[in-house]
């Protein structure tokens, strides 16, 4: 009798010991997980502080209004930020309408068949294609076959293709979150498919579409490899042709065909110089580029949050 109870006691003792060990491990994991996560966030902060500190001596009006130069202290990013802005304009104008329309097709119109399946698999796969391969595509097709040359138009189209999957996926998710009841109510009142889409589905998914657009552009703005591949120049001491003219017809699209440089290209050029003085320029350009990217992401997060809060189905 006593032997049995002492054996049970022993068993319970072992169990309790095991339990406290398991609970300890559990707590240890919380500490490990939390510190790894905070570590990653700290690295982001270090990265930013480091760039700002290294680039500090270059910040100033001159840096924004000077062209690249052989002397590090007088070199600036004028051609780079103008080039980047114009490329982003082309990218947005091409990628957003096509991406949104493709997403509408896949969500609202496409029949369920093998053809739609192919389009869907394509979009997923395109998102996984390395960005430099888009550069090769552009070099072979846009620059040489279509004879666009090493122009702003070629760069903008390349980046538009690159972010197309991002825009499509974001728009689809956003359209999918519109409840079917809304569509059915509109159909019930005799609306056609396009009227349902244009008057009901699209307005409700604007937040998601905007978020996708901004995230896509923030990806495009930092992409270096594809536009190096199509042959961006790193030393440019002139601006593209002005889009606004003083005489009729007042607008000109000549700038689309001008050679260009862009922020990440300029930074890469400075980083790869052995001269230490240029590293400060690289850091300053990097800090500005990082600020642009983070600001765009911040806006995207804000919009997503705002729209999610506003809509109550």
């Amino acid at each position: 009798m006593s032997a049995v109870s002492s054996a049970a006691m022993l068993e319970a003792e072992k169990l309790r010991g095991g339990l406290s060990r398991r609970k300890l491990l559990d707590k240890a994991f919380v500490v490990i997980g939390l510190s790894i996560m905070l570590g990653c966030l700290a690295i982001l902060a270090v990265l930013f502080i480091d760039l700002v500190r290294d680039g500090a001596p270059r910040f100033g009006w001159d840096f924004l209004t000077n062209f690249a130069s052989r002397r590090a202290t007088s070199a600036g990013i004028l051609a780079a930020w103008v080039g980047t802005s114009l490329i982003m304009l082309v990218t947005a104008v091409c990628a957003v309408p096509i991406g949104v329309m493709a997403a509408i097709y896949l969500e609202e119109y496409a029949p369920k068949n093998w053809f739609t399946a192919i389009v869907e698999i394509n979009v997923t796969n395109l998102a996984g294609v390395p960005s430099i391969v888009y550069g090769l595509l552009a070099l072979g097709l846009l620059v040489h076959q279509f004879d666009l040359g090493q122009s702003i138009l070629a760069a903008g189209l390349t980046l538009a293709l690159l972010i197309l999957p991002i825009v499509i996926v974001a728009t689809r998710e956003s359209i999918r979150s519109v409840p079917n009841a809304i569509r059915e109510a509109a159909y019930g009142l005799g609306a056609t498919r396009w009227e349902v889409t244009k008057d009901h589905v699209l307005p409700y998914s604007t937040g998601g579409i905007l978020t996708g657009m901004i995230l896509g552009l923030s990806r495009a703005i930092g992409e270096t490899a594809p536009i190096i591949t199509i042959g961006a120049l790193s030393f440019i001491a002139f601006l593209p042709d002005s889009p606004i003219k003083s005489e009729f017809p007042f607008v000109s699209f000549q700038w689309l065909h001008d050679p260009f440089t862009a922020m990440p290209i300029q930074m890469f050029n400075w980083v790869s110089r052995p001269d230490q003085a240029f590293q400060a320029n690289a850091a300053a350009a990097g800090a500005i580029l990082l600020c642009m990217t983070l600001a765009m992401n911040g806006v995207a997060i804000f919009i997503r949050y705002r729209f999610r809060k506003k809509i109550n189905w």
Partner: protein
Amino acid sequence: MRDRVVEILLLASGLVAVFTTLAIVGVLLFESGGFFEHVTLKEFFTDTMWTPLFADAHYGIMPLVAGTLTTTVVALVVAVPLGTTIAIYLSEFAPHNVRETVKPILELLGAVPTVVYGYFALTMVTPLLQYFMPELPGFNMLSAGLVIGLMIVPYISSVSEDAMRAVPRYMREGSYAMGATRLQTALRVVVPGAFSGLAAAFILGISRAVGETMVVAIAAGMQPNLTFDPREPAATITAYIVQVSLGDLAHGSIGYQSIFAAGLVLMAITLMFNVIGFGLTRKFREAY
């Protein structure tokens, strides 16, 4: 009638994606076709030197493949444990508001332009490593790989966390009812249940690491070097493409065609990992 026109327009937009894929495959095959007229497949895969631009030209892709695989492995050694741990923490341990705050901030790590990561690798990580390994050269694959690893942590953690959260609640509750702690539940119930999603996350990370360009172009040097030692400088496939593009090569020359051949190999490697990932995902898919 108008509906019909709209539908055709929408369909045309959808087809842009299909045409892009076709164009990528077409351009790569067409341009590297010219390359393989000069270079035999045997030389391409067995020669141990890659010097297409030198007078004594060698066309062996292996040094570039070795560089790509080495930086990728270093990146994964960093990113897989970190990313998975963060995902387990966020999905199983973190309170709701912590998760909602941290996840977007963590995703910013993946949004930083890669050229900035390159600067980081060259000017901060390499000097830091040299402090511990004084003989480490200024350009090396180790620092590039570490930084790429850091860069893909958010991709892995984000996708893994989504997969873990899709594991139904009753499975966790069953495990808790048997007296398991949160950690035991996470490791023995949630992770196996979400394995297909985790595999997809790792494959996504691998694809990013294989295709990553600027970090290696800046921090790993651009000399093709047949080695698997991460402490050495080497060029990856992507770095080679950048290096050639920076110069001014005549359209149609063998150097010009060689970057398309390199791009074709890059696509093949990416595709191979994706096929493996697809197989894994299918094999381990749990339906709830």
